[in-house]
């Protein structure tokens, strides 16, 4: 059996893996968006830019300071998380009493600023980031050749996603966080510093985006525009999944990555729009999203 539906099985599985990799990124990013939206009520358009900055932090620390991939994996989330603290403290904080649309517009402006700054510094051509030695090469599974790095990306990001889910759903810290989403003033009355919690949540979401950026760095072209193009797809993923459920956004992300991969096999022309088409269909049938609750 070397063909499936007339497609060589190697190519088929290759695209499926690529879909899974993309799906892991969708999952990580939509998870961050969902957590931020849950507590801050803000749709963070800058999420894509933060992801881009994460990738650039990895690249710069390699090129300029000789720091390796594993350091970048820790450094980038810290740097971008700190940036997140700054953004939340100085700007987003002032918008909580306003229409949530202003949060979207502000973060859109921030995304433009970041993109412009990086374009000015690094131009629009893509930068390459080498796959770390420990993860280079590929494993022959018998039915397909599995590039080690791609397998690592899928495992690492799903672990991070499930870890985040565990923290939010199963620990007391997560319980406080969820309580803050439901009723911030009551949580405040219990003696919990809600403003700090909000800041850290935004920073955490930003750090997740940066981590996704580092994971993506060795398998994509690092460009200033890489985030914005991705974030719009992630928005569609979020709409499809509905922002209510953490596990839901992880699942939706992975699923849509796979669907996109399959579309690349069977009808490549439609692969860039398939997520949007699915979004339209889901909205027709279930406006609240697959895992969302109708309010």
């Amino acid at each position, binding site marked *: 059996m070397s063909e499936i539906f007339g497609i060589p099985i190697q190519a088929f599985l290759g695209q499926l893996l690529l879909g899974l990799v993309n799906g892991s990124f969708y999952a990580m990013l939509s998870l961050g968006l969902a957590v931020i*939206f849950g507590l801050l009520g803000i*749709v963070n358009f800058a999420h894509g830019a933060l992801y881009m900055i994460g990738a650039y932090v990895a690249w710069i620390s390699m090129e300029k300071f000789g720091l390796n991939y594993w350091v970048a994996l820790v450094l980038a989330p810290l740097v971008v998380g700190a940036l997140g603290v700054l953004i939340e403290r100085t*700007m987003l904080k*002032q*918008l909580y009493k*306003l229409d*949530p*649309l*202003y949060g*979207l*517009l*502000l973060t*859109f*402006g*921030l*995304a*433009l*600023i*970041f*993109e*412009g*700054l990086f*374009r*000015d510094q690094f131009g629009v051509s893509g930068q390459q980031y080498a796959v770390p030695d420990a993860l280079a090469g590929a494993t022959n599974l018998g039915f397909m050749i599995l590039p080690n790095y791609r397998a690592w990306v899928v495992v690492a990001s799903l672990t991070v996603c499930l870890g985040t889910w565990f923290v939010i759903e199963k620990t007391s810290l997560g319980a406080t966080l969820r309580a803050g989403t439901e009723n911030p003033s009551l949580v405040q009355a219990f003696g919990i510093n809600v403003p700090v919690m909000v800041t850290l949540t935004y920073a955490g979401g930003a750090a997740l985006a940066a981590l996704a950026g580092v994971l993506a760095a060795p398998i994509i072209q690092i460009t200033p525009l890489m985030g*914005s193009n991705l974030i*719009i*797809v992630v*928005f*569609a993923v*979020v*709409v499809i999944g509905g922002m209510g459920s953490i596990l839901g956004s992880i699942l939706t992300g992975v699923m849509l990555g796979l669907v996109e991969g399959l579309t690349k096999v069977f009808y490549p*022309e439609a692969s*860039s*729009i398939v*997520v*949007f*088409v699915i*979004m*339209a269909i889901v*909205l*027709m049938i279930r*406006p609240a999203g697959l895992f969302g609750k109708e309010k």
Partner: protein
Amino acid sequence: MSSTKNSGRMAWGVVLALLIAAPFIGLYPVFMMKALCFAIFACAFNLLLGYTGLLSFGHAAYLGAAAYVTGWLVRSAGWSPEMGLLAGVVIAAGLGLVVGLIAIRRQGIYFAMITLAMAQMIYFVCLQAPFTGGEDGLQGVPRGTLFGVLPLANDTVMYFFVLAVFVAVFLAIMRIVHSPYGQVLKAIRENEPRAISLGYHVDRYKLLAFVLSTAIAGLAGSLKTIVLGFATLSDAHWSLSGEVVLMTLLGGMGTFAGPVVGAFTIIGLQNFLADRVGAWVTVIIGAIFVFCVLAFRRGIVGELLAWAERRKNR
């Protein structure tokens, strides 16, 4: 009241006189036409955001789709400019109807995300469709002869046609907003559940507003193609969708003049900065965005009106 009304009328008169005089006092006509096209676009957008409270984050898609359709019909199929414009408007309205039907199923922030995603889909179609010229876009669209008599190749003739369209759109939007229909839109903006409980079919009102707005956005795109002679991918790109939000916000959303002021300011700024600062244009636009959201939410015209109000009450 009557004195503000009079001074308002006088201000409009002065602006109109300036616009009519523009080609004769040395203002570069192509720049003025481009700015007017974007002013039409921003007015269309303001009809949604300012008067209905719907943030469409993908309005460039309708402008871009209409620009391509008009460009192709006029250049490759030999249509007259007026028929090309009409076709652009029809296409944009049709797309608006489809997207609107899907997007009005969700409110608020979701509406914005859905319109953005659908616009990105239209963008990809523009990128891949066989007749759009891919990355290069459609070049060399002739201006032709309007109604078989007016030679649009002449910049002055073209300018006055664009100005006439602009004035017509502006008055039409004013008329819509002041009509009973416009009042219902405002009611929806202020309190949607209440409008529903009063028995209005809110979704139908919103959908019509969306279609009207996308049709006018399409008109702006088609007109721009005729003026400049090309349609490119940037006409349908999300960054233009963001710019039209900025034009409206900076000028003053929910005011008639705001989007026009905003469009002229942003287009003028881009024109001025284009060769001077490179990628910093994006940074500056982003910074204006952040500033407007944080400290200037009423916009230029909104602040002026508030200032006039304060002075009157003193």
